[in-house]
C-alpha cells in the first residue's frame, strides 16, 4: 500500500465517520434510560438489551406505524397503476404533443406542494375525507406521479424497439404488448421506481401534517409531536427514529447503484 493510498483511506474513514456518527449517536440513545440520555459526561455504550423505549413507543403508537405502512404501500401501488401505462405510451406511441407532455409532467414534479395545500385541504374537507388514509394515499400517489412516469420512461426506453415491434407484428394489441412484453422486461426498473416512491411517501411530513389530525396520522407526524415547546421526549424520539429510518437505510444499501439516476430522474447514470 503506497503512502498516498493510505492517506486516502484515512480520509475516507474520516468522511464516513462524519456522515454516520450523528445517525449512530441517535441509535445508541434509543437503548438508554432517560437518566442515561441526560447524563453528562455521556454514557457511551448503552445496554442493548434495554428495550423499554421501544415498548413504550409502540404500545401507544403502533396504529400510526401501521397507518404509515398502509398509506405508503397503497400510494405506491396507486401511483404505479397510473404511471406505468402513461410512461409506456409516452415512449412508444407516436403523437404530436409527446415531448410537450413529457416536459409538462416533469415540471409538475418541481412544483412546491405548499402551493397546493389549501385547495387540497378544502377539497378533502368538502368530501369529508380529512383525517382519512384515502386522502393521503390520493395525495401521495399524485405528488409522486411525475417522478414515477419520468423514471419509468427511461426504463421502457431501454427495451429494444425491435422486441416491441415484433410483438405488434405478431398481432398483439397495445394492451397485450404492455402487459406480456414490456412490463416483464422492465421489471427491475419498475422495482426501482416503486422503492423510490415508497421512500418519498414514507418520509413525507408537510401534507400529512394538515391532512390528518388524529385517526390517520402517519409516523412522521407522531415523531414530530414528541418535540413540544415545553418538553422533548428524547427516549421516544430516538426509538422512533430507528424504526422510521430503517426502510431508507436498507434501501440505500441495497439500491445504491440506482440512487443517482433515480434522484436526477434519469439524467445522470452511474
Amino acid at each position, binding site marked *: 500500500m503506497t503512502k*498516498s493510498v493510505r492517506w*486516502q*483511506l484515512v480520509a*475516507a474513514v474520516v468522511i*464516513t465517520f462524519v*456522515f*454516520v456518527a*450523528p*445517525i449512530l*449517536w*441517535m441509535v445508541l*440513545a434509543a437503548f438508554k434510560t432517560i437518566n442515561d*440520555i441526560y447524563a*453528562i*459526561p*455521556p454514557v457511551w455504550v448503552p445496554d442493548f438489551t434495554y428495550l423499554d423505549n421501544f415498548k413504550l413507543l409502540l404500545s401507544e403508537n403502533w396504529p400510526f406505524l401501521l397507518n404509515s405502512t398502509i398509506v405508503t404501500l397503497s400510494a405506491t401501488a396507486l401511483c404505479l397503476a397510473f404511471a406505468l*401505462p402513461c410512461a409506456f405510451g409516452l415512449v412508444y*406511441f407516436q403523437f404530436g404533443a409527446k415531448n410537450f*407532455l413529457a416536459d409538462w*409532467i*416533469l415540471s*409538475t414534479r*418541481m*412544483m*412546491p406542494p*405548499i*402551493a*397546493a*395545500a*389549501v*385547495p*387540497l*385541504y378544502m377539497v378533502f374537507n368538502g368530501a369529508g375525507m380529512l383525517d382519512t388514509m384515502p386522502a393521503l394515499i390520493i395525495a401521495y400517489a399524485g*405528488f409522486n406521479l411525475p417522478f414515477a*412516469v419520468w423514471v419509468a420512461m427511461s426504463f421502457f426506453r431501454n427495451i429494444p424497439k425491435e422486441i416491441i*415491434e415484433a410483438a*405488434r*407484428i405478431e398481432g398483439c*394489441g*397495445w394492451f397485450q404488448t*404492455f402487459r406480456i412484453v414490456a412490463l416483464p422486461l422492465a421489471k427491475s426498473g419498475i422495482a426501482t421506481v416503486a422503492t423510490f416512491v415508497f421512500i418519498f411517501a*414514507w*418520509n413525507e*411530513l408537510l401534507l400529512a401534517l*394538515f391532512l390528518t389530525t388524529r385517526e390517520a396520522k402517519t409516523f*412522521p407526524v407522531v415523531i414530530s409531536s414528541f*418535540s413540544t415547546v415545553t418538553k*422533548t421526549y428524547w427516549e421516544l*424520539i*430516538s426509538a422512533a*427514529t430507528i424504526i*422510521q429510518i430503517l426502510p431508507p*437505510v436498507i*434501501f*440505500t444499501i441495497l439500491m*445504491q447503484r440506482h440512487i*443517482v439516476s433515480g434522484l*436526477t430522474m*434519469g*439524467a445522470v447514470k452511474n
Partner: protein
Amino acid sequence: MAEITNTGTKVFARARPEESDRAIKLFFIAPAVIYLLLLSVFPFIYSVYLSLYDAKLTRMDRKWFVGFENYERLLSDPLFLKAMQNTVVLTVSSIILEVIFGFLCAKVFLSLREMRTGQVLRSIAILPMMITPICVGLMFSYILNPTLGIMNYLLSGVGIEGPSWFGNPTFALPTVIFINAWQWTPFMMLLMLAGLVSIPDSLYEAAELENAKWYHIARYIELPAIRDVILIGIILRVIDNLKLFDLVYVTTRGGPGDSTELLTFFAYRQDFRFFQVGYGSAAAVIILLISIVVTTVAVAYLRKVQK
C-alpha cells in the same frame, strides 16, 4: 405505425380502425394526465385565485375580493422579506458547501474505487441523503442540545463553551445550513463521482508528464468532465431548498425571532396556524413563480442532457 409498415411485413394492427387505436392510446396516457391536472394543476390555479381574496380557512363561505392587496402587503411584511432573504442565503450557502465538500469526498472515493474497503465506506457514507428529513433534524437537535448534547460536551473538553446552536439568533441559520449540507453532500459526491469516473487515466498521466499542479488538473481536466452533473445537482437542490420545510419544522420553527423563517414555513403558518389563506396563498404563489422560473431552466436542461 409507420415504422412497423416499413419492415415490409403485412401488419395485422394496420387493419385496426384508426379510431379505436386512438382510443387505446388515450386510455394509456389520459388517466395519469387527468390525475395530475386535478391534483396539482387545479390546486395551483385555485391558489392563485385565493391569493386575490381576503379569506379565512375557518370561514371559507365569506371572502372578499381584494385584488393584489395581499401581494402588496407581503412585499412590505418584514417577516416575509426575512423569509425570502433566509431562503436565498440557505439555498446558496448550503449548495456551495455541498459542491466543495462533495468534490473533496468524490476525489477521495475516486482513488479508492477499485478497493473493497473504499466501496464499503462509500456505501455507508451516503446514508444521510435518503433518511427522513425530520429524523435528521431531531438527530442534530439531540447532538447540539445545549444541556444534554454531546457537541458542547466535546467542545468543553477543549475549552470552548459551545453556544445554544438553535437558540442563538446568530448561530441558528448557519446551523440549519450545515445540517442541510450534511444531508446532501453525499448526493453531490455521488453525482461528481459519476462524472469523474469518465475521465480516462491517460489524461491524468499526461498532466503528470506536463508537471501540472493539482489546480490545473481540477480546472482543465476535472471541471469540464463534471460540469454537467454539477449543474444538474445545483438545479435539483435549488428546487428542493425552495420547498424546505421539515428541517426547520422540527428544529427551530422559524426562530429564534425570525432568524430561520423560510418561505414554505411562512406560507404554512399563515394557512394553518393563523388561517389567513388569502395571504398564505399569495406567499405560496410567489414560491410557485420562483419555482416555475427555475423549473423551466431545469426541464430544458434535463431534456438536453438525457439526449
